[in-house]
């Protein structure tokens, strides 16, 4: 499975078109952010290296072969490095080793950060909605601003969020775009597009 379909320029263009279609129907301002990963997971790599080292130590200890006791610590240290590097170089391995809850938590936190970094809270009606995709984490996180009604957030947004996560987990860009498109009709009923929507945000500096 490759993450490529989500990172290609074509994906960006298609998403951009989908967002325009959504915003033609509703006052919700959707921002889609696709990130290769939400965090680096250095701890996972190092923990894996340490586990390899412990295993190597055990093998040397119990092996019928004789190992030089003075070089054994050095060997264990080397094993740690090799293990950590391997886990860093192989994202699949690293994902397998990281607890699912950790992956989800990291994606959530990174999404909150992106929300403020992208300035999504700047809409006048506070109707921004961030769709944050973390590919490594195989996660899609929705971050709605305070102006989006709670009923929408707990109702159709939640189910669209699940569909988006499913699509990202399967690395299926078509399914992702299909789920994304549902945001338009879902939000239009609650927050229809107003005539003066293009006059929002006017936020240059000085």
């Amino acid at each position, binding site marked *: 499975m490759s993450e490529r379909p989500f990172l290609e320029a074509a994906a960006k263009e298609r998403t951009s078109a989908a967002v325009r279609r959504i915003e033609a129907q509703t006052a919700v301002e959707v921002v889609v952010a696709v990130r290769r990963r939400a965090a680096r997971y250095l701890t996972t790599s190092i923990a894996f290296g340490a586990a390899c080292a412990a295993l190597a130590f055990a*093998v040397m200890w119990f*092996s019928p072969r004789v*190992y030089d006791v003075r070089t054994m610590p*050095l*060997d264990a240290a080397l094993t740690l490095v090799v293990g950590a590097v391997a886990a860093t170089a192989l994202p699949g391995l690293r994902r397998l080793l990281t607890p699912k809850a950790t992956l989800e938590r990291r994606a959530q936190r990174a999404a909150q950060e992106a929300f*403020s970094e992208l300035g*999504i809270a*700047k809409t006048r009606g506070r109707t921004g909605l961030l769709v944050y995709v973390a590919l490594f984490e195989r996660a899609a996180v929705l971050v709605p601003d305070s102006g989006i009604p709670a009923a929408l957030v707990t109702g159709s947004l939640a189910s669209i969020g699940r569909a988006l996560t499913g699509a990202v987990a399967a690395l299926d860009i078509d399914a992702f775009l299909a789920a994304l498109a549902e945001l338009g009709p879902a939000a239009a009923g609650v927050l229809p597009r107003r005539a003066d929507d293009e006059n929002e945000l006017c936020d240059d500096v000085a």
Partner: protein
Amino acid sequence: MRRRGLKRTHVALFVGALSFTTAVGARPGGGQAYRGGSSRSSGSSSHYSPSSGSSRSYGPSGGGGDVDSGLVLELLLLCFRYPPLGLLVVGGVVGFVILNRRRTRGLSDWSVGGMPARVEATTRTTSARRELTRLVESDPGFSLVLFEDFAYALYAELEMKRPGGELQRLAAFLSPPVMELLHDPKLERVDGVVIGAMRYVAVDHGSERTAVTLELEANLSEVRAGVVQRFYVCDRLVLTRARTARSRPPGRKRKLDCPNCGAPLEGMRGTTCGYCRQEVGGGRLDWQVERIERLTTEQRPPDILSDAAESGNQLPTLVAPGAEQRMSQLLARDPASDPAALSARVAFVFNALQFGWSNRDLARIRPFVTDGLFQYFGYWIDVYTTVRARNITENARILNIELADVVADAVYDAVTVRLFAVSVDYTLSDDGKVLSGSRERERHYSEYWTLVRGRGAQGRPRTEPVCPACGAPLDIGMAGNCGYCHARIVSGEFDWVLSRIEQDEAYG
């Protein structure tokens, strides 16, 4: 287990070689190999397989009597001992890295949506600003920089003079309905007006009058019944001026005085000057505020945490047509202001700003920015101080500077560059919590910076902290005057000062 299996294989393959080398002393890895038998005397220095108790044991496929230095080490040594194997391993690793690179080349993170509305709105703003410069066609002395200074000064004055009958002094610059609207008998005093932003909403060149609609965001400290109240307001002003009006001569450019003769406003009787006896109101000779409207009033400071948009820094630099040519005209007049020297000045100002901003130290910023931009910094530093937070830009550095525009009017040269920079950017509360941004991750961004300098100035842009007028060490008061020679250095009469900072999505 796989490691051990590997080891067995190599032992089997190279059993002959091993039997020669195991007893050899030093190895590249530094481990000493020796015959296990002799290790009995050294006891704990060697490990014995538990299955064999304290007696020497040989591995099941061992080459006989050898001691290994470790699993990975042994593999490593083997690579050194048999260069073809070593090359194979190195080749494999390099190949993996190259393949990985190739697989992910051209793929990067992206964001879409939300931004187009922003770009549209702000492009309208800047195009209105550009539209205003067309006034030069009928009024050659018109300068956008001076117009903006004037608008800032007039707005601050009309807010400050609201209490009592003070507004009468400004009658030459305010229409009667505006005077009436601004009158507030309960208002005792205005302690401060700090303008955070000024936007152009529309510019209309009518046949008789030019109308400029502006929005100003400001922070006002008003005293009513002895109580100081702070308001964050957004006001919309319409300034108009007769088509026949001409800009003030540069000597009187920064003062609000009689539009006709330059006498102090204290001598005004209504809209008639007590000195030249001329009727000077109604926008006949100078701009007047025709309408004013308060759009929003807030008692809470604006949200600092949402003030971190970063979009559009992958867009190409917008270079104004003819910018290069106007740059060479500027160079012909002043060869010392070459792009390299200007870039050095930009970098110098950049560093001073980072320091002043992160430390909420306005004095550091003062010498390098015009009054308007200084107000902007003052406004935001005040907001941060109010909410007890600081926006910190650490390790900020410029990566590249590109020329975007050069404009000369009657009074000023203006150079706009696009600056690409990177820094760690986060907002820290005064009790040490990170409120937004990241302390570790660096953020790339770009901005359009406009520097201005009086047409009369010449010479190499300075990159050392000295007064550009007298050369004394930089000691600038908040009004922008040198502590030694008292020259006002922030109006750009002596050296390039920063007058505007625009984000990518706002510039156009």
